[in-house]
C-alpha cells in the first residue's frame, strides 16, 4: 500500500507540475497580449490627442488672424471717418470748385468723354 501510495503521489505531483506549467504559459501569453493591446490603445490615444491638439492650434490661429483683421478694419474705418469729418468741414466753396475742375480734367485725360 505504501508503495502504491507513493506511486500515486508522484503521479499527482507530476500532473500538477504539468498543469501548473500550462497555466503559467497561458497566463504569460495573456499578459503579453494585454500588453500589446495596451500599447496599441496608448498609441492610438496619443495619435488622436496630437491630431486634436493640432486642430485646436489651427482653429486658434485662424481665430486670432480673423480677430486681428477685424480690428485692423475697424481702426481703418475709424481713421477714414475721422479724416472725412475733419476734411468735410475744412473744404470751402472755392476748393470744392477746384476739386471738381481737377476731376473733370482727369476724366478728360483718361478719355472718359470719348464715345
Amino acid at each position, binding site marked *: 500500500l505504501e508503495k502504491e501510495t507513493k506511486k500515486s503521489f508522484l503521479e499527482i505531483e507530476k500532473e500538477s507540475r504539468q498543469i501548473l506549467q500550462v497555466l503559467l504559459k497561458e497566463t504569460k501569453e495573456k499578459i503579453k497580449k494585454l500588453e500589446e493591446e495596451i500599447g496599441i490603445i496608448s498609441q492610438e490615444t496619443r495619435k488622436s490627442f496630437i491630431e486634436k491638439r493640432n486642430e485646436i492650434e489651427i482653429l486658434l490661429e485662424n481665430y486670432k488672424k480673423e480677430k486681428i483683421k477685424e480690428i485692423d478694419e475697424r481702426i481703418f474705418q475709424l481713421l477714414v471717418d475721422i479724416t*472725412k469729418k475733419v*476734411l468735410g468741414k475744412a*473744404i470751402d466753396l472755392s476748393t470744392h470748385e477746384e*476739386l*471738381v*475742375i481737377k476731376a473733370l480734367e482727369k*476724366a478728360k485725360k483718361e478719355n*472718359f468723354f470719348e464715345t
Partner: protein
Amino acid sequence: MNSLLERIFTKEDIISLKEDISKIQKVIFSKSGTLSEKAKGIAKKELFEFILEAEKKGEIDFNSQEQFEFLENLKIKLDSLPLLKMTLAFSPTQSTIEKISQFLENKLGKKIILDISYNPEILGGAILEYRGKYLNLSLAKNLEKSLKINE
C-alpha cells in the same frame, strides 16, 4: 440752337425749357399768326428770340401743324443733348454750375447738360456717369486709397 442753349446748363433747365415749349404747343392750334406771335407772353426771352431768329431765316411758316412740328423737333434735339451725371460733395451755386458747364464746353467743344446730385459723403471732387460709363474721382475714394497704401 446755340443762342437758345446759352442759358441752359442742367437737366432741370432742359425740363423747364421743354415745359415752356409744351405751353406754346398747347395754344398753337387755337391762335392764328406766326409762331413768335403765339409764343409771346409764354416763352422766356431766350426761347422767344430763338423762335424769332428761326422765323427770320424762314425755318417756320404760318402753318400751325408745321409750327407744332418745329417745336416738337426742338424738344427731340434738347433730349438728345449729351448728359453728364455728376455727384458732388456740395450744393453748387448757379455760378459754379456755369463754371463747370463752360469748362466742359471749352474742353470738349460741345454742350453737355449737367445732371447734378449732392452727397456730402464723397467729401470733394466728383463721381461722373456719362454714356454708360462710371468714374469715381471723389476725394473720399482717393482718401481711402491713400490710407490703404499707408496702412
